[in-house]
């Protein structure tokens, strides 16, 4: 059982110069065990900030975030993170990257190698084990990063717009594969995105966030059978995406106005 409780969290973002900005305002949210939850909202709505708070990278100053009742104190291997720009160690090969977390766990060598191989195979990177990240395409880099995170078997997967830097075709492929991996061994996933289609396709629940300061505007249940190959063109999918887009649109416009565009 792994649930994340976010209780009345406020967060002030303090830029190096200029006045502090209220990034999150009174956010309360329950992430259920083994659900795929999407955080959806316009850029600057604080969705990534919320994810970093869950990751333990930023301190929770007002309110609380706890996992299975225990407040978060810093990052930990039970919460795996996938970043938009991959964050692979550029001086390590694919295999060395995937092995890194396994080494920190102190597993015996044979087991480490076997696990690394398993996850490199799972994301379809066999044959590229000895390549450095600089020698891989964006999609392959993100595959390697996902393998690295999954290999340590975290209970929670935190994903910060992981496919945002990929081209449309690669993104579609990666979405389908991620969903397959998740179905085969479900974990609690929090997936940050600003793409409505992506959120509806991947997640069982979509949390729509309002423009800055970020608040939970609505939580939409998007859990239906998405295994059909043409699910993206089904009326049900279309209606749901339209409904959510309606919610996001207002916020996106507000976000634009707020920036004076």
């Amino acid at each position, binding site marked *: 059982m792994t649930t994340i409780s976010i209780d009345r969290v406020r967060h002030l973002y303090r830029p190096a110069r200029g006045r502090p900005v209220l990034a999150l305002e009174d956010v309360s949210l329950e992430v259920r065990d083994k659900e795929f939850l999407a955080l959806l909202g316009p850029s600057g709505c604080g969705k990534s900030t919320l994810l970093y708070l869950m990751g333990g990278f930023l301190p929770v100053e007002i309110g609380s975030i706890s996992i299975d009742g225990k407040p978060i104190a810093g990052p930990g291997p039970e919460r795996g993170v996938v970043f938009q720009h991959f964050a692979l160690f*550029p*001086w390590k090969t694919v295999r060395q990257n995937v092995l890194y977390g396994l080494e920190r766990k102190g597993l015996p060598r044979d087991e480490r190698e076997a696990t690394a191989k398993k996850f490199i195979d799972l994301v379809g990177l066999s044959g590229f084990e000895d390549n450095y990240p*600089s020698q891989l395409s964006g999609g392959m880099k993100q595959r390697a990063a996902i393998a690295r995170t999954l290999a340590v078997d975290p209970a929670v997967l935190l994903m910060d717009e992981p496919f945002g830097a990929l081209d449309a075709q690669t993104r579609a492929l990666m979405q389908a594969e991620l969903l397959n991996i998740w179905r085969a061994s479900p974990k609690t996933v929090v997936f940050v995105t600003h793409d409505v289609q992506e959120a509806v396709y991947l997640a069982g629940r979509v949390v729509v966030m309002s423009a800055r300061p970020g608040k939970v505007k609505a939580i939409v249940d998007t859990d239906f059978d998405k295994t059909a190959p043409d699910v993206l063109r089904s009326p049900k999918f279309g209606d749901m995406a339209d409904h959510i887009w309606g919610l996001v649109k207002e916020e996106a416009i507000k976000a634009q106005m707020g920036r004076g565009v």
Partner: protein
Amino acid sequence: MTRNALIARLVKYLPLLLLAMAWEGASRFELVSSSALPSLTKVAQAWWDLALGGDLVENGAASLWRLAAGLAIAIVVGAALGIGMAWWRPADIALGPLVEMFYPLPKSALIPVTALWLGFGDGSKILLIAMGCMLPVTLGAYNGARSSERVLVWSARSLGASKLRILRDVVLPSALPEMLSGIRTALAISFVLLVASELIVARAGLGYLIGFLGSNGTYDSMFAVVLTVAFMGFVADRMYLLIMRRALAWRD
């Protein structure tokens, strides 16, 4: 090596060959005084004699030892200082201004100082090179370590790395490219300091030999040693570049 690569290399070193020919010609046809610029063939002959007589090897060994020891200290202390300053804020606050103040100091000004402290032998040269070459390494390591990406540190932490681990596995490799450039600068400075200090206060070394031969009026031999030092500097830099390229093979 393919034929094209061979030709490319020949073209690259052609200016050097032309310079050598001009030198030989200028001296032979007395365009310049042959005592101010002995012909290249005479210099080559003098080099051969120096090599056979053992002078070159003996003084060369003394110089190389000073260079290696001084640089080793500069790299170890300089890198530790730079990374320490980037990693631990109090160190930055305490030492940052000192580093900035001493960085532009002409390092040769320290020659009399180190001679005063440690005399005419190896010690003063090693200390001079260590002190003079340390700061470029420090600055490279400092800037490199500070540029380590936040998400890489975060990744390592979420994969279970301790603070010390992150220093070793993320901060150090992030610092490497800039630190290695700093060391290349240090390598160049080390040759300058070596020869300058040996010219002024020494009883052995290639710089000493240059000064000794010059004051004896054996200019062909003096030029032979000057060319030897130039060649050593060139080879050292090339070898270093090779090592650097290998260490940074992970970059595109």
